[in-house]
């Protein structure tokens, strides 16, 4: 039987989300996607980021790999020119015909350009696609001043783009205030004054009549009253649904445009569906992405047989940052009905305006406006969405922080309350995940996807988590162990601030009891991160965990493995020969590691010093495979040899490995450097991944492989060598300072409130003002590096501990090996009976 044909016209944000939702479900469609643009879907919401450094790749949402992986035919640069509903056939722009059983219109919208004479002159643009951005940038290169026509949400985004391009920026708005759709008069005025203070000139109540030749600039905009000269014009005066195809094939269209759909996103033809900004639901076009995503989700479910899936409207509340100014609008922001009551506060000094719209009896909140400070947004939104009863004095909800602000008890929220709007996760779903064992933010994010997109609901998710744990009688105890009533971060600060140099000192001043195998290694690691003293110093040796204790990796039979450092995985034949000779001399089982090094197994504790004397003599250093510290920096061969390499990845890897070798941290650290975007070093699976670009290096952070693989995230792009190293210095030291014991960077990042953006703020923008301190702390660790093994083999006191027995030099006779594939391996219990022993070491 032939599969049913599903055609999707349009690969914008909503079209792409529809495909993602569809492939998550069991479906039996053969899917074909028409994409008129020359690239798969990208994030239009973040368009202005392109001007501040993000590349088209960074904005990408869809990818050729996605389509291939899911068997979707992706027709790039191909539009649809006609739909024949009778024959159920569409015609593509290259003339090919495609038949369908179901057809999805996800054609989106186009920017509305007001009918103004001269609007088609050169350097007059719209702001919708990446191609538009390329054209805007080209025009901006020959411009000094730019004007945005339209002072709505998108217009202000576009104004940021012009400002980032270095143009003197003006905004022209026809209405008497900015963001007329979302704000009231006072809110609009406050926004205007804040934006003006940032150097953007705002002109409201201006209707542009024509654009003509300017005298000091390229154009002159002529208004009903007055005029303004400019070199570049950006139209951002709203959107119109792209319903042309639907009109031509006779589908029902709304009076003011838009393809009419029902709750199932079905058009007047039952085989054709429309989602996103082209769809007109109950006479409304939703110009935000979240409702579009909701339509995509519901339609995918419905096509896969869930007949109950229905789109039932969306809340249009928004919270965003425009030109750095926080703006929030909830529900009936503009008051609406006359019986509503209003209370507001306005502080011109700090530039904050907040308004609440209350029901007639004053008991419910129906809307709110926030300008300059949106910290109350989440709580207020919950009051509106769940019709919660307000506290006695509602104004206290928005009053400046006085410590008396009534907390919105998450207990008051019904289970159906939506906590994460990006991924539509309710309080009930979060609570059941908690009951099922997700007791950390990280685990909750993975399980429910809550707070994993924009992160705006992180505080709320944490509150739900804490409240739920409390109500389930689970006490939240972040103490390191019974000996210290502090978190690891707390202990780190005590050590740093009070200059504590030993465990005994820390325990007597801030702990109790004698310590244990939890706190001792944790404190040893903190002491090493702060002061970098010799780990086998008599003060510290009793603190070291299994492997650090003898500077080697303990194996199941009590023997150890040895991993010398091979920086960047580069090794001369001579040194390789040394490793082979050492392995032969001590009969060590030899294996290549995943980190481009060589692991030598089966060394008894008493053999370690001799092995290392040979290795150190040949120029090897400790590889710290035994430590919670930097392991390897893997690299590809890079531009020295590779036909495709664009940077010298090996030199960078060696530099980085030698810079951070020996650095003790809350958990092991792995890094990699790739010499081009093909990423042969697999840097995106590392704590720190560095990938070469034509311009420099892209830095990826907080990835790992292992039990719970996590891709690293792009942290910063096209960095020069110095900036790259500076960011890594800061990042690692910040991690060392704030992470929990044995917490990899991935989990640390997942649990971080504010997510990647916060981390970028701390590391790149230095919002905490600690960057210099972090760098100098790192520098002192680097400056005090000593190879632990070189030091140990020269230290008679330390060497004493490596004797097999205090009173006897005969090695442990119970370490027994058999041979397999030409090498030794530990004998199993059944192989240890005297008759079977092939060899006793």
């Amino acid at each position, binding site marked *: 039987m032939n599969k049913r044909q599903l055609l999707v016209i349009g690969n914008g944000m909503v079209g792409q989300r529809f495909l993602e939702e569809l492939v998550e479900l069991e479906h039996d469609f053969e899917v074909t996607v028409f994409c008129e643009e020359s690239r798969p879907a990208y994030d239009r919401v973040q368009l202005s980021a392109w001007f501040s450094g993000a590349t088209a790749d960074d904005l990408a949402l869809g990818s050729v790999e996605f389509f291939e992986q899911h068997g979707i035919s992706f027709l790039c640069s191909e539009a649809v020119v006609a739909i024949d509903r009778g024959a159920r056939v569409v015609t593509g722009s290259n003339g090919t015909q495609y038949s369908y059983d179901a057809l999805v219109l996800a054609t989106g919208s186009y920017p509305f350009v007001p009918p103004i004479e001269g609007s088609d002159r050169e350097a007059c643009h719209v702001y919708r696609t990446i191609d538009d951005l390329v054209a805007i940038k080209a025009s901006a290169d020959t411009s000094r001043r730019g004007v945005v026509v339209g002072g709505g949400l998108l217009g202000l985004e576009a104004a940021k783009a012009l400002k980032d391009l270095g143009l003197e920026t003006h905004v022209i708005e026809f209405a008497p205030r900015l963001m007329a759709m979302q704000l009231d008069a006072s809110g609009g005025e406050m926004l205007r004054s804040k934006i003006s203070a940032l150097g953007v000139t705002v002109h409201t109540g201006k209707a542009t009549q024509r654009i003509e030749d300017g005298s000091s600039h390229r154009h002159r905009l002529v208004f009903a009253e007055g005029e303004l000269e400019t070199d570049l014009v950006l139209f951002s005066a709203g959107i119109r649904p792209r319903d042309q195809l639907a009109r031509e094939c006779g589908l029902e269209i709304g009076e003011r445009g838009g393809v009419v759909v029902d709750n199932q996103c079905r058009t007047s033809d039952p085989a054709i569906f429309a989602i996103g900004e082209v769809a007109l639901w109950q006479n409304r076009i939703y110009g935000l992405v979240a409702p579009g995503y909701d339509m995509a989700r519901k339609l995918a479910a419905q096509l896969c047989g869930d007949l109950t899936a229905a789109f039932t409207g969306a809340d249009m509340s928004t919270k965003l940052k425009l030109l750095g100014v926080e703006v929030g609008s909830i529900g009936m922001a503009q008051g609406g009905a006359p019986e509503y009551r209003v209370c507001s506060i306005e502080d011109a000094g700090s530039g904050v305006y907040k308004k609440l719209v209350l029901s007639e009896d004053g008991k419910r909140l129906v809307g709110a406006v926030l300008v300059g400070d949106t910290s109350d947004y989440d709580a207020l939104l919950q009051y509106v969405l769940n019709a919660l009863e307000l506290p006695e004095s509602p104004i206290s909800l928005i009053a400046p922080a006085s410590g008396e602000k009534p907390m919105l008890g998450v207990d008051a929220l019904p289970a159906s309350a939506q906590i994460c709007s990006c991924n539509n996760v309710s309080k009930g779903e979060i609570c059941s995940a908690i009951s099922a064992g997700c007791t950390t933010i990280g685990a909750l994010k993975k399980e429910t996807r809550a707070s994993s997109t924009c992160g705006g609901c992180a505080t709320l998710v944490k509150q739900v988590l804490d409240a739920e744990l409390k109500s389930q009688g689970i006490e939240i105890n972040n103490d390191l162990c*019974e*000996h210290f009533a502090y978190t690891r971060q707390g202990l780190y600060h005590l050590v740093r601030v009070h200059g504590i140099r030993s465990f005994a000192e820390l325990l007597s001043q801030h702990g109790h*009891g*004698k*310590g*244990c*195998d939890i*706190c*001792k*290694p944790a404190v040893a690691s903190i002491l090493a991160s702060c002061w970098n003293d010799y780990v086998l110093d*008599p003060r510290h*040796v*009793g*603190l*070291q*965990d*299994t492997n650090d*204790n*003898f500077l080697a990796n*303990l194996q*199941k*039979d*009590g023997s150890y493995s040895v991993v010398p450092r091979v920086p960047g995985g580069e090794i001369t034949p001579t040194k390789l020969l040394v490793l082979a000779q050492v392995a032969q001399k001590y009969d060590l089982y030899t294996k290549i590691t995943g980190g481009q090094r060589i692991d030598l197994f089966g060394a008894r*504790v008493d053999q370690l010093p001799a092995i290392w004397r040979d290795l150190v003599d040949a120029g090897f250093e400790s590889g710290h495979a035994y430590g919670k510290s930097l392991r390897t920096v893997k690299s590809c061969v890079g531009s020295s040899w590779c036909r495709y390499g664009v940077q010298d990845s090996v030199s960078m890897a060696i530099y980085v490995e030698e810079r951070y070798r020996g650095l003790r941290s809350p958990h092991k650290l792995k890094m990699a450097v790739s010499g081009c975007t093909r990423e042969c070093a697999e840097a995106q699976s590392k704590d720190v991944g560095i990938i070469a670009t034509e311009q420099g290096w892209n830095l990826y952070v907080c990835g790992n492989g292992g039990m719970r693989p996590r891709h690293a995230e792009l942290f910063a792009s096209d960095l020069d060598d110095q900036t790259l190293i500076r960011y890594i210095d800061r990042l690692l030291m910040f991690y060392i300072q704030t992470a929990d014991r044995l917490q990899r960077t991935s989990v640390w990042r997942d649990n971080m409130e504010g997510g990647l953006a916060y981390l970028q703020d701390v590391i790149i923008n230095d919002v905490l003002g600690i960057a210099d301190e972090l760098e100098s702390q790192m520098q002192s660790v680097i400056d005090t590096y000593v190879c632990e093994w070189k030091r140990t083999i020269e230290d008679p006191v330390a060497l*004493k*501990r490596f004797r*097999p*027995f*205090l*009173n*006897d030099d*005969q090695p*442990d006779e*119970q*370490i027994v090996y058999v041979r397999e594939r030409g090498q030794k391996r530990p004998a199993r*219990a059944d192989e240890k009976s005297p008759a079977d022993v092939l060899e006793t070491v």
Partner: protein
Amino acid sequence: MQNSTQWVEIGALDDLIPGTGAAVRVEGKQIAVFRTDDGLFALDNRDPFSDANVLSRGLTGDIAGRLVVASPVYKQHFCLKTGECLEDDQQKVQSYPVVERDGRVFVAAVGEA
């Protein structure tokens, strides 16, 4: 009981770093000797969970008031005084008498019950 004990000198107290253990051989037995702030202790060096002779290399400390060593292999805790395993009451290692006289350490290879 100690009257009938055969004491074997295993070395100087100074050879034991405070807070750590060391392996010794007494009458063919591998024994782990620990030096703590609360005195000396001796247990079998063999960890019953891994069957490796490693307890002398474990971390010492206290858990809920009991002095313990943690096996470096799978991290079970053994009471330094009795050899009992805190995680598994089916497992126990032998403990031995150990004393210090004039800076020298003596162990008796006779198990304490």
